[in-house]
């Protein structure tokens, strides 16, 4: 809709469409404010320049009325912008039910992408158009930031935790992916492409990737290999919380707090079980910090999610 504005960037997702309106409104407002200030300044400088014969009588001494008036006007205007922006922001960061989930690992200096079906890509992300895609993102080293200008979405990818982002592309094409958090030497070249395809094209692409195991299946292998099934498996005699149906539910912890069992929670439990012991269970789970990289973590989490769970996680 705004393609007539010179140099206006492409908009290829519903996220971007919503942001555009606010964006343009603010640009227009900025222009208006600048024009007003410049006009006033130029007018006064010309009219009241030294040597001009305009009358300087009756200087305004009681300035309060003006100041209160423009304080209130400014505050009112700012509050409108704030509310508008905040509403969109909350919507941008509360993922709706997703049609697809993709797992992203950022590392110096590339984006590793893993689809739920096990398809892997580097510096590229193929997605179907008009479908809600939810990204679960981890960093293997430093803080990166996943940015798609054409979708107007961005989120930092932080080591030690998992972040989520969602979008729904509304046109096909190839769109730039950037890293916008300085992450070291080759930060400037840590780019990629988001390839938005029609449904059938995407389905064809998925099957052509030559994948044997889905992400969840790979996670199941890890689950057994690292001994998790010894306590959490169906035939275990150890008193450990059951994982089936866990994802998305509320969990009561030993210290009295309640947490939502989202991806970040699952990650925390695996890496620092002592601080997240579930109420009523002995604190005996070994911690796996240092034994699993971010990619492995995401596979395990995908597996646990596949064991059934509640609603999609909400931030």
């Amino acid at each position, binding site marked *: 809709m705004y393609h007539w504005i010179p140099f206006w960037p492409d908009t290829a997702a519903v996220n971007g469409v919503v942001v555009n309106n606010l964006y343009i409104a603010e640009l227009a407002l900025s222009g208006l404010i600048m024009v007003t200030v410049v006009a006033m300044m130029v007018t006064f400088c010309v009219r009241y320049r030294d040597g001009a014969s305009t009358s300087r009588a009756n200087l305004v001494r009681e300035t309060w009325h003006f100041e209160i008036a423009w304080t209130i006007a400014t505050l009112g205007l700012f509050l409108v912008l704030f509310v508008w922006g905040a509403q969109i922001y909350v919507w941008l960061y509360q993922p709706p039910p997703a049609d697809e989930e993709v797992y992203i690992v950022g590392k110096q200096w590339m984006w590793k992408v893993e689809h739920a079906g096990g398809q892997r890509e580097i510096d590229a992300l193929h997605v179907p158009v008009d479908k809600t895609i939810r990204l679960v993102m981890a960093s293997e080293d430093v803080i990166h930031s996943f940015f798609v200008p054409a979708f107007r979405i961005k989120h930092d990818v932080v080591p030690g935790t998992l972040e989520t982002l969602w979008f729904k592309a509304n046109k096909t094409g190839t769109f730039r992916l950037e890293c916008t958090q300085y992450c070291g030497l080759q930060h400037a070249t840590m780019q990629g492409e988001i390839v938005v395809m029609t449904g059938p094209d995407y389905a064809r692409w998925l099957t052509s990737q030559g994948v044997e195991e889905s992400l969840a299946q790979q996670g199941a292998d890890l689950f057994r290999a690292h001994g998790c099934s010894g306590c959490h498996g169906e035939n275990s005699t150890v008193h450990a919380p059951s994982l089936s149906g866990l994802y998305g539910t509320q969990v009561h912890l030993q*210290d009295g707090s309640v947490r939502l069992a989202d991806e970040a929670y699952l990650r925390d439990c695996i890496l*620092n079980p*002592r*601080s997240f012991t579930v109420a009523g269970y002995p*604190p005996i789970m070994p*911690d796996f*910090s240092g034994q699993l990289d971010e990619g492995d973590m995401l596979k395990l989490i995908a597996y646990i999610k596949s064991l059934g769970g509640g609603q999609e996680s909400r931030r």
Partner: protein
Amino acid sequence: MPADTELMPEMQYATLAQQGETAQFGMWVFLTQETIFFGALIFTYFLYRTTYPHEFAAAAKDAVLWCGTLNFVILVTSSLTMVLAINAAAQDVRPNRMVRWLIMTVVLGCLFLVVKGYEYYLDFQDKVVPVVAFEVKPGEGSAGVLFWVFYWVATGLHAIHLTIGIGLVLYMLLWRIRRGEISPAYYAPLEVVGIYWSFVDTVWLFLYPCIYLVGRS
């Protein structure tokens, strides 16, 4: 040592009283800033303590309680001797009582450092020095070391501040008082040092429970 010449305020001050008040105000402003400095560290400590209460409790078992408590007593007493010294400055024409209390303060301050030094030696033995001599204790997990990083940074910074305080008191004794510049007519410099000393004491008041009373209730 009586003052032969009358003490004059510095050129930018109208009276000695203005100079003294301004000096004290300056020290209070400085200490506000110091409070924020230590406050930032203590804030970080509390953030991690509430996130990892078990790990911190496990790690803090190796904190040497008797050293910390003894030092607490030493420092609080030194604040008392400092106040007594200032009292003497305000009342006595002759500096003898003031000097005695100030020497006591220096001795107590140095005693704190000796006890702290011995405690550091014990810490080495207990292997709670991150990177240099560190062993993960049971129940501490990977987050327990954060307690010890806090311990070394906080007590190290505190010791530096205490050493500066001792230096200031020595400066008072060996320089200002010896030249007769502190008397009931003008003893603001000593008050300024006293305020600083009390601050160093207060920091220990906060560090003590953070370090030594974790998980001991």
